[in-house]
């Protein structure tokens, strides 16, 4: 029986599927629709220091093979999270990763610092696709800023693994990937959503109140896949930092593509809206693939993609 278990920088997962932040709430919201105990790990909605109401509606638009979202990081804030959500997280039947967003260094440090003492939190994922209110620059697009933020956050999280979730809205994602790694990230996750737009031609206005939103879903899969491959080869593999790959994953074949490209685990977001059973279906498909390809451990597939110019793989891993 193929072994789906995997390890992310020491964090043991029963299988390589994770939920993507923002698509499944804080804890048990999806319990009626999927078996949470079968997840590799659960990633919460982004929490910020202060409660945020979120953007004015309309917050979402469906587009061809995808959707735009401009939720605006609506969340209960750190204080209410600790009182209202943490008790539920403590009962989750799978490892829990808390996603943290912020608008200043202090925001991130205070919120992440509060996570360090929580037994039920296995790791913190840093959402850096937010503007720094001090200078308006998005943390995740400025390598220098990102490296310093990662370093300061890592300082207040001695007991937890730190995941940095990379924004794809950059000229060269390998620069921000390298900055996160140099800042001390234990794990990289990529990609977050792509900035995009939709227009109502009759009103001659954007369909989102926020004008722009993040594009997710099957439409972004080919781009996300390429970025995972690039980051794996130029930064993550040499540094020994594992990747959580995500972007439009809907079927088990998509998950295999990402793992071959270099992902140790895969995130499933928009596909949960389509079918909450997606992570389980992906695990079932993975097992069948591994049986067919005579692969014993899913770890054997990580980065096994062969590009022209690569050394041929050793004889033992031939199917």
């Amino acid at each position, binding site marked *: 029986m193929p072994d789906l278990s995997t390890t992310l920088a020491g964090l043991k997962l029963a299988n390589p599927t994770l939920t993507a932040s923002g698509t499944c709430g804080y804890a048990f919201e999806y319990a009626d*629709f999927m078996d949470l105990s079968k997840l590799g790990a659960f990633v919460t909605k982004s929490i910020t220091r202060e*409660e945020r109401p979120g953007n004015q509606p309309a917050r979402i638009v469906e587009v061809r093979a995808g959707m735009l979202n401009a939720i605006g990081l609506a969340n209960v804030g750190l204080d209410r999270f600790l009182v209202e959500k943490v008790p539920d997280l403590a009962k989750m039947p799978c490892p829990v990763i808390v996603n943290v967003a912020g608008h200043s260094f202090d925001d991130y440090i205070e919120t992440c610092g509060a996570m360090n003492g929580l037994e039920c939190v296995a790791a913190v994922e840093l959402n850096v696709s937010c503007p720094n209110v001090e200078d308006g620059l998005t943390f995740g697009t400025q390598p220098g800023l990102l490296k310093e933020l990662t370093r300061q956050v890592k300082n207040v999280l001695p007991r937890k693994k730190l995941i940095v979730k990379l924004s794809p809205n950059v000229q060269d994602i390998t620069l921000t990937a390298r900055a996160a790694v140099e800042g001390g990230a234990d794990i990289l996750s990529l990609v977050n959503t792509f900035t995009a737009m939709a227009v109502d031609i009759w009103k001659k206005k954007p369909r989102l109140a926020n004008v722009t939103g993040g594009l997710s879903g099957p439409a972004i899969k080919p781009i996300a896949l390429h970025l995972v491959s690039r980051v794996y080869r130029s930064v993550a593999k040499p540094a020994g930092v594992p990747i959580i790959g995500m972007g439009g994953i809907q079927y088990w074949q998509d998950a295999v593509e990402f793992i071959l490209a270099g992902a140790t685990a895969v995130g499933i977001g928009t596909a949960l809206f389509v079918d909450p059973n997606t992570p389980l279906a992906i695990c079932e498909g993975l097992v069948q693939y591994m049986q067919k390809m005579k692969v014993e451990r899913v770890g054997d597939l990580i980065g096994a993609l062969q590009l022209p110019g690569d050394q041929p793989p050793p004889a033992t891993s031939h199917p």
Partner: protein
Amino acid sequence: MTSLYTPDSPPLASPPPRGRFIATVAASDAICHEHFRLTLRLPSFPPTFPGQFIQVACQSLDLDYTPEHQFDWTTAAPTSLGGRELISPLALLRRPLSLAGRRDLPDSSVELDIIHRVVGVGTAWLSRLARDDRVHILGPLGNHFQLPPPETPAILVAGGVGIAPMLYLASTLPGRAIFFAGAITRDLLPLNNIAELAQYNIPSVLSTDDGSYAFHGPVTQALEQYLTRYLTPAVIYTCGPEPMMKRVAQIALDRNLPCQISVERSMACGMGTCQSCVIRVRKPDPAKPPLAGKDWSYKLACADGPVFSAADLLW
């Protein structure tokens, strides 16, 4: 570093039973121009109440994606276009559709009705379903209408495809309601479905904006004329285009009648997690969270609604 985590925090109340189901099509009938009633059968389904909805996948979730077939080409055999996204646009997200009826059959199976209008890719897929086709649904979702007190009649006001939850509600109020249904023109009124209300001893008033059938004018005008003549304690329930519902809410407010609204908002998850379907409501106590200090807050149409009291909405 301070921690506000206290081990004695009360657990959050669990929502009523609901789940992920695969239904089969029992019937799909055109009921008037562009409108279909789709009847789904399931071996069982949790209890449901008028006002609730289901999230319906408007694509087949049973087909496997087989990218390796996309590029098979030989002169002897044509390419199999397995990658369906290449052929035509698919409705990605589920569509939230109010329950238009529910029947529990003698063999414990359940039939659910939904009524939809073909307005795009998803509803077009639904309209092409045939008997025994499989449909993936999540539900039941949302809150539900509160029935009126025992001696108080209900006034149901339906506009366009908003008739769906109104028909389900009517079926639970035999002999206790009057039903107003309006549409732009005769062809957009599901006349047979409205006529079926007679079995519940519920009279109906029909109106068309263009006068092609029955009362000539918006349904809100018919409602107003009725209330002017027969004002009586009643609870008003409405579902339809938002401008119509706002007018109904105002009519109710002017006469000091309680009014329950079923709103519609764009949804992704449909069950309270993605935070997409927000609507502004008045907060009874501005000092309390959420948004302490503000006299309004956002509620979710899918979880706190879709039924709201008209007096609470800031729309």
